[in-house]
């Protein structure tokens, strides 16, 4: 399998508080020499609790945060501190689906405009063409034409997530970062969205980086899992193996703490 994303020794420090008289602010190490890879068509899960640094990892890959140390290579190219507004090809290749509930879609825009946003940013299509493209994208995630002009607040959580997925697919990305995509959804709705994500991956061979705290979801959808704590990877490997036979104490604690039926 070809390597698509390669994170090498990534480190992110945040400085806290005000500077003391003699220089030196307090430092928070959000990511500590972290390395992982994602192959083409692969789904890699990053599982951790709050404060593990998993969201910071996602932010670095998306170009929202500049890492302090280390490198990120995408398709062989160094994208570590690459500005996305100056490099549309990279911007289009790596997309994100956030955790809803609010804030993921601009509340003042009808959803088709959110879906077609990338076309607007890159000025590639006229308005009517953008609308048609949005309709097609929404159809591909199971949303009908009648939803085009609706506003986010009029949609259910599951529908909003589908819109977010449609928006991510607009640029035909190679990698989608999914940041807790189903955490705010009801169980039945989560199942539908997971099925949709599976479907899309089978159709398009897009790669996923799934950031989540839910071991069950990661164990279901991912090929490989990396368990994160305090900015480091505690254990990584085959997803099924980690969920059934975790080796490190922390990974075992995470797996055991996830409430399951029939145990």
């Amino acid at each position, binding site marked *: 399998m070809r390597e698509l994303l390669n994170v090498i020794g990534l480190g992110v420090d945040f400085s806290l508080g005000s500077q003391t008289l003699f220089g030196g602010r307090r430092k928070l190490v959000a990511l500590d020499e972290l390395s992982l890879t994602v192959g083409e068509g692969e789904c890699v899960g990053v599982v951790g609790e709050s404060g593990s640094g998993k969201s910071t990892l996602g932010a670095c890959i998306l170009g929202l945060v500049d890492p302090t140390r280390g490198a990120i290579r995408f398709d062989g190219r160094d994208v570590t501190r690459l500005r996305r507004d100056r490099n549309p090809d990279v911007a289009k290749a790596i997309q994100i689906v956030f955790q809803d509930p609010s804030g993921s879609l601009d*509340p003042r825009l009808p959803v088709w405009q959110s879906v077609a946003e990338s076309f607007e940013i890159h000025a590639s299509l006229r308005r009517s063409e953008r609308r048609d493209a949005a309709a097609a994208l929404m159809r591909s995630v199971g949303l009908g034409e009648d939803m085009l002009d609706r506003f986010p607040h009029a949609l259910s959580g599951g529908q909003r997530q589908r819109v977010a997925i449609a928006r991510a697919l607009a640029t035909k990305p190679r990698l989608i970062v999914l940041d807790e995509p189903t955490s705010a959804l009801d169980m039945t709705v989560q199942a539908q969205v997971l099925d949709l994500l599976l479907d899309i991956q089978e159709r398009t061979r897009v790669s996923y980086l799934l950031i989540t705290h839910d071991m069950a979801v990661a164990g279901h959808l991912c090929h490989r899992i990396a368990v994160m704590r305090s900015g480091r990877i505690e254990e990584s490997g085959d997803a099924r193996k980690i969920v059934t036979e975790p080796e490190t104490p922390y990974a075992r604690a995470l797996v055991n703490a996830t409430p399951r039926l029939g145990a």
Partner: protein
Amino acid sequence: MTLRLNASLVAALLILGSIVFVALFAGVVAPYSPNAIDAAHILEPPSWHHPAGTDEVGRDLFSRILFGARPSLLVAFSIVALASTGGVIVGCASGLAGGLIDTIVMRLVELVMALPGLVIALALAAALGPSLVNLAIVLGLLGIPFYARVARAETLSLRERAYVRGARTMGAGTLFVMRRHIVPNLLPTVIIFMSLGLSGALLGASALSFIGLGAQPPLAEWGALVNASRTYMLDQWWYAAFPGAAVAVTSFGFTLLGDGLRDALDPKNVKA
């Protein structure tokens, strides 16, 4: 942006619509010329002939109020338009830029706010010559910091929203984000401040007109009328009451407009 009518908006449009109509067609509607001096009817209380009474040189107050609508509205709108446009641009750009630029810009904004507006206006009037236009420009510029702070505060919170960060990962530049996401989402807040600002601008203009910096007599701008009535207020109550009522009704209309626009512009209120 979608717009939907609601009760406040309709009421506001009726009130302000009438006032704007009067402003435009005062010449047709008013019974007397605003400058027609009539020595025989000085300081008369309201009557059939003079519904709002007359002033110290016999001019019909009702007509003066009608003719005063246009300059009063114009000065209030100009001040707020200048202050809000300038303020939103400055505040929004500063908020998005962040870092050192943001710090410097906001300190400058606070500096302007700390300056005594009256003294500045006096100085500028002395330099440029007193007129309603200069007044509008001065007060407009002095109002920029207020809107800049509001716009910056909104921008700081909006730029962390997921849809803004998402646009950035898609390759959107700062200008696109500002135009497409930030400004439309901070407009409702700014509009409410604008509606309050219109009332304040009206009264601020009248205060400066008193010093002689704004409307020059015989211009019947409402603020100038209210201030001319100071000497006569205790005995000739109509002289202050009617122009004051004009300001009050217009202010009320502005407030309703702010309310109505904010509700009308909020997509959550669109009936599915």
